[in-house]
């Protein structure tokens, strides 16, 4: 599986180019800062710094960008844990349990757990990439639109069912997200739901909507409270809980490896990436846990599952980028741009002719993951001081930064207006116990679901018997039906049980 001649050439290549190492720590810091500012994202950071790589050689250029990618992958977890604001769409599930942990004064533990899960996840993804970059290229090509559609339905239904509210509310919230995601020009050039507004032609921007639904609505909800953590004794800033969280995560290595494996697998599928990987891994962790009811209330396993998956999906995404020349998400799309800037085209030919460079990239990224441990530890220690700030001062500043950050994303007032509108919607949804998470998931997977459904329809001509020739789709569908039946049955049983206890 490994070409040892190319492997030793890769080590020589890395050893002879000091610039390849000099750019790593600045790249990690840039990624951490951009990932942790609500409204900014890894892809923005990579896009901003892409021109800076123009005068670098190919290897340092790609290592610099992947360092931003790696740092940003974890950076998004910092505001997700401390303020319930997923800095990036890949940290959505991190907020589910990270923020409740922070509210209980376990912010240090949550940050430490997230950091270690992220480091292990990144390592896992790249080690898998080292072994699988060749053979996996053929397998990925077998996944067609029907399989991708079922993956999208999986994501939405699991989140709709696995919430603390009713299934009906989960479904309504999820569908609302899907419908919002379809506003604007469709793939076929039809204008939907814009009501003549030029600003809505590109649709409702997902990241500002996500920030509004999660962050703005939560910040508005917190108005009138004193601090993020009510108990004064728990408002401590110390390295000890961060290290304790990190150590506990290492002890629960099976969960970390499971999340990493899910993330790598999903990352390999083109067009899916970290934003779906973290949700799928979270759903799997909750499903397989002995205490699923503790998820969403501050269970560190939720943070670990999400962070391990979103970080390992980076390695998975690199598989398709290197092996097929297909980007798995926004980050790898920018990497593809960097490839083009250096006159390099990813794909099987690139791998066969430049195996030493491919190995050098993988090894460089493995070292980056280890460096993230050190840089990330210092970063999260400084970031956790936020719990000492009064909420009455924190709330307006976070909202103002979110507004400006979303203006930076959209380049117009659509971003800030989306934050305000989604914030109001999220606040009302929270008031009537609708899961805003399901809406966010619907919003993120809606475009993919619609695209794959349309393609499936066009290929099959609307004939359902087409599915009989797609064994992977049938297996995925059967598993989905079985899992849903088990989940709904256990939910109904649990409710009947608790009603009996109350009586």
């Amino acid at each position: 599986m490994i070409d040892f001649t190319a492997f030793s050439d890769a080590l020589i290549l890395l050893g002879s180019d000091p610039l390849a190492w000099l750019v790593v720590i600045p790249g990690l810091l840039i990624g951490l800062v951009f990932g942790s500012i609500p409204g900014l994202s890894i892809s923005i950071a990579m896009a901003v710094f892409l021109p800076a790589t123009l005068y670098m050689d190919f290897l340092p250029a790609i290592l610099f960008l992947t360092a931003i990618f790696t740092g940003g992958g974890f950076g998004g977890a910092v505001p997700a844990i401390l303020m319930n604001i997923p800095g990036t769409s890949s940290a959505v599930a991190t907020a589910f349990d990270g923020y409740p942990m922070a509210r209980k004064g376990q912010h240090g533990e949550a940050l430490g757990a997230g950091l270690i899960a992220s480091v292990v996840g990144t390592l896992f993804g790249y080690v898998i990439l080292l072994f699988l970059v060749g053979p996996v290229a053929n397998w990925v090509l077998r996944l067609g639109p029907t399989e991708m559609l079922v993956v999208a339905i999986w994501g939405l239904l699991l989140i709709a069912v696995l919430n603390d509210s009713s299934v009906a509310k989960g479904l309504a919230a999820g569908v609302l997200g899907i419908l919002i995601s379809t506003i604007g020009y469709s793939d076929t050039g039809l204008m939907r739901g814009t009501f003549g507004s030029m600003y809505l032609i590109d649709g409702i921007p997902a990241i500002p909507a996500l920030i509004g639904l999660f962050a703005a609505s939560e910040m508005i909800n917190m108005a009138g409270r004193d601090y993020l953590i009510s108990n004064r004794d728990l408002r401590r800033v110390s390295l000890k809980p961060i290290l304790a969280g990190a150590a506990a995560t290492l002890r629960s290595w099976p969960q970390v490896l499971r999340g990493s494996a899910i993330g790598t697998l999903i990352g390999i599928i083109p067009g899916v990436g970290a934003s779906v990987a973290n949700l799928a891994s979270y759903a799997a962790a909750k499903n397989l846990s002995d205490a699923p009811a503790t998820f969403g209330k501050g269970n560190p396993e939720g943070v670990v599952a999400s962070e391990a998956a979103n970080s390992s999906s980076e390695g998975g995404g690199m598989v398709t980028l290197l092996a097929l020349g297909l980007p798995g998400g926004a980050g790898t799309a920018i990497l593809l741009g960097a490839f083009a800037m250096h006159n390099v085209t990813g794909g099987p030919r690139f791998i066969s002719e430049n195996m030493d460079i491919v190995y050098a990239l993988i090894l460089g990224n493995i070292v980056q993951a280890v460096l993230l441990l050190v840089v990330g530890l210092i970063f999260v220690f400084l970031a956790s001081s936020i719990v000492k700030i009064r909420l009455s001062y924190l709330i307006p500043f976070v909202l103002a930064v979110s507004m400006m950050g979303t203006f930076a994303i959209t380049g117009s007032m659509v971003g800030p207006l989306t934050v305000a509108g989604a914030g109001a919607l999220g606040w009302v949804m929270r008031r009537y116990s609708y899961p805003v998470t399901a809406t966010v998931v619907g919003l993120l997977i809606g475009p993919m679901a619609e695209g794959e459904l349309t393609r499936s329809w066009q290929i099959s001509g609307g004939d359902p018997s087409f599915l009989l020739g797609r064994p992977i789709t049938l297996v995925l569908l059967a598993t989905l039906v079985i899992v849903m039946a088990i989940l709904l049955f256990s939910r109904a049983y649990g409710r009947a049980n608790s009603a009996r206890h109350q009586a």
Partner: protein
Amino acid sequence: MPENSERIDHAERPDAPRRRWGALVFGLCLLGVMAFYAWSVIEVSRSLTDYLLIVPAAIVGALAALWAGITDLKPPRGLMAIARPRLRDEAKPLALLVLTVLYACAAPFAGFDIATALFIAGALFVQGERTWWKIALAALPGAALITWAFTDLLLVRLPVTFL
């Protein structure tokens, strides 16, 4: 004195379970919005693929919202009844919500520097801060710092008036 004790009794007496009409109204609003959106897409569509996802999804979502609204109508019992927020407890969040919407609407006209300063000052006032110099100290340099960071450090072309 009797008047006073009556008021205390009334304040301490737990509210009688009330039907959650608001939840039903919200459920019906969701239903209406989904149905209206699906209908508007069908009206302009040219082929089945234009609404292949939207119409079935809207039907499922609208039915789910209606069901959620109807089931929410019954008064909450047990811990849910105690935990349920009353409207007067939500005055501050509501005021902040209105302020946030006004901020988003005012920023393109007033510029982010002025709108942010006014928003921070307003948000602090809404949340109970009454010391004018603390409000001024947070609002003016705070807004200037954030706006400067975005316009000069991150080179975002924000609409501004002074900075």
